[in-house]
């Protein structure tokens, strides 16, 4: 049962990754691509980590996985903000 749930979570996570990457390629604009990127980062990695945590069934590993997810969340949110701000700055001129 746990294995089935973990498998589903991992597969849906990979689906979100692929959706985010396809969005990265097909969307027309930097800002819209940032939207696609954050879906892959948050949802894709989050579901993948949830699946891996269920699969591992070890508290220490689960905590480490949680820390990884939080770090990627914060880092990708900050990176998206910084990149968008830089692009805006370049558009409107110094």
């Amino acid at each position, binding site marked *: 049962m746990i294995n089935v749930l973990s*498998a589903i979570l991992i597969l849906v996570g990979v689906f979100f990754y692929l959706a985010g990457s396809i969005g990265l390629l097909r969307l027309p604009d930097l800002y819209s691509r940032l939207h696609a990127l954050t879906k892959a980062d948050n949802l894709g990695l989050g579901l993948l*980590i949830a699946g891996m945590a269920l699969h591992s069934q070890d508290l220490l590993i689960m905590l480490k996985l949680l820390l990884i997810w939080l770090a990627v969340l914060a880092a990708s949110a900050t990176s998206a903000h910084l990149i968008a701000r830089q692009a805006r700055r370049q558009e409107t001129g110094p």
Partner: protein
Amino acid sequence: MTDLLLLSALGLMLSLFLGLLRVLLGPGAGDRMLAIQLIGTAGVGMLLLLNVLLNQPALLDVALILALLAAVAAAAFTGQQQTHHD
């Protein structure tokens, strides 16, 4: 289960390739930087899967380091240097 994990690793590899396309294509440097973000996250995911597939617990630490340092590159890219020596 291992087959599923391997399939997921292949899916993440495909995602990484798509990100690589954006790095090579992306008209601006901002597009390239956000593709680097995606490659980094895909790398973290792949390391987590390899951790279980190859039974290497240390790869979890490698994924943690990649996750922590993910913001450093974007910050270095967008940092505005001061115009005078302080």
